[in-house]
């Protein structure tokens, strides 16, 4: 009898342990061998290639890049045609949602599973590719989280980072790290990824791309010498292109070309694309942007970025191409106190886009326009003509790419302005450049700090 009771009680005890036995993740098996881990990464990379929602915040997709750009000062929200343009959002506050936050942490979880569980295979070539790609994607996810959900690190309020999850623990509920801790983890992940020297092209990331991301990271947080070194390294391997080659690269919607290093949504539907571009045409490009191209300059970008109706005719792009490295390097030179190099590199760049071209000098640099929304640099200092012209050239070049103007506005002073949307007046406010953490996370986790301005959940 005693034996039966003992067995029964032991069985009951084990039943109550079920939750512990399958916590990673609940109800699912943990991959065990290198093929399983490879399948996990292939699934993630497939999502990146096809621009699927889950992975879209990692590299971006053309639709998101265009939609976010459409609420910046490059476009004229007030003149949006209805009903064609009704699908477009009106102001920065319309993007203040937490979907990307959740999706990015899901991708981080996948990376953590691989990094934690890969075990004996970690020293094989395949293992190194898996580990390197996991570090690369995790680093990119945290980089995106930092840019979207934290204030700019060089601003006074840019002290709070994001919660850092570095191991696969479903029970972990970390609070927000400091900005420096977040930057430190991203840097660590990128350097680990570079050390693995990823060889498998299917995983999309390689060392050049990760050096590019390091340049982006250092640029975002003002570590100018490192930003410049990394940017020049990438630019040396993937030089700027010009003329017809440049035009062909920019016009290519799906697939790498020219000096594009990586892109999200490498595959897609032409039908969906045409419909999306027709919607975008309902919102004209602002005269502020058009006026950045003086009539006196034969700039190749004028010939195919927009038409006479001020509609965008440029291909939306989300990813990385080496022109960005040129701008990181020249802005870094400027902040390092080397205006001569910064100006030389600005002229070198402009010569690739404008022909015939006369070099700008410190005395012939165009003055800061009155209608420019960015009035200060990333430190809050009043713009100088040289920095203004670097930012203007970047703005011209990356129109409809990576929502670059949104991030530039955020990095340089977070200017405020109003727009009319569906007959009502909305203010783009400073706090809206930093998006809210999900309501559920805030309610579940004591001590998790919400970004300012988001007080009342609906």
């Amino acid at each position, binding site marked *: 009898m005693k034996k039966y009771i003992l067995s029964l009680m032991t069985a009951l005890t084990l039943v109550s342990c079920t939750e512990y036995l399958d916590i990673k993740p609940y109800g699912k098996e943990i991959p065990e061998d290198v093929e399983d881990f490879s399948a996990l990464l292939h699934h993630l990379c497939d999502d990146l290639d096809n621009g699927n929602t889950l992975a879209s915040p990692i590299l971006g997709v053309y639709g998101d890049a265009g939609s976010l750009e459409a609420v910046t000062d490059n476009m004229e929200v007030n*003149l949006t045609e209805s009903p064609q343009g009704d699908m477009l959002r009106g102001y920065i506050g319309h993007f203040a949602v937490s979907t990307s936050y959740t999706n990015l942490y899901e991708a981080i979880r996948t990376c953590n599973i691989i990094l934690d569980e890969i075990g004996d295979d970690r020293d094989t070539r395949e293992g190194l590719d898996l580990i390197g790609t996991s570090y690369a994607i995790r680093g990119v996810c945290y980089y995106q989280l930092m840019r979207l959900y934290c204030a700019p690190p060089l601003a006074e309020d840019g002290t709070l980072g994001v919660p850092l999850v570095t191991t696969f623990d479903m029970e972990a509920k970390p609070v927000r790290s400091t900005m420096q801790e977040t930057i430190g983890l991203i840097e660590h992940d990128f350097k680990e990824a570079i050390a693995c020297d990823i060889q498998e092209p299917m995983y999309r990331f390689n060392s050049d791309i990760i050096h590019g991301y390091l340049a982006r990271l250092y640029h975002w947080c003002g570590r100018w010498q490192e930003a410049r070194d990394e940017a020049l390294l990438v630019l040396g391997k993937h030089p700027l292109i010009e003329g017809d080659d440049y035009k062909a690269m920019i016009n290519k919607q799906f697939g790498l070309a020219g000096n594009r290093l990586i892109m999200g949504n490498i595959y897609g539907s032409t039908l969906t694309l045409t419909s999306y571009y027709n919607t975008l045409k309902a919102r004209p490009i602002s005269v502020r942007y058009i006026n950045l191209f003086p009539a006196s300059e034969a700039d190749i970008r004028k010939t195919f970025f927009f038409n006479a109706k001020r509609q965008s005719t440029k291909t939306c792009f989300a990813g990385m191409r080496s022109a960005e490295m040129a701008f990181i390097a020249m802005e870094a030179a400027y902040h390092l106190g080397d205006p001569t190099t910064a100006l030389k590199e600005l002229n070198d760049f402009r010569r690739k886009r404008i022909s015939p071209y006369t070099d700008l000098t410190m005395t012939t640099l165009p003055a800061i326009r009155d209608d420019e929304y960015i009035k200060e640099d990333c430190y809050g200092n009043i713009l100088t003509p040289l920095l203004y012209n670097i930012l203007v050239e970047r703005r011209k070049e990356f129109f409809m790419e990576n929502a670059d103007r949104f991030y530039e506005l955020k990095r340089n002073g977070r200017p405020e302005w109003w727009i009319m949307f569906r007959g*009502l007046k909305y203010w783009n406010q400073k706090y809206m450049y930093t998006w*809210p953490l999900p309501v559920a996370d805030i309610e579940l986790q004591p001590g998790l700090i919400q970004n300012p301005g988001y007080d009342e959940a*609906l």
Partner: protein
Amino acid sequence: MKKLFITFAPVLALFFCVSCEKVDELPEINEQGYKQQYRMPDPTLLNDEDRQVINNQEQEHDANVPS
């Protein structure tokens, strides 16, 4: 047997409680389900000055862009 039961009862109770921990952690829900977003400032009506700004933009656009 009684002794055995008394010994195991607290252990069983402890395990049951621990495994039920997550039930207490569900977020609060409202009438529509889980709260998902934050209230943004309400838009306001345009005043005469605002309308003038938009009129100027329309005029500049119409004057320089072919219909």
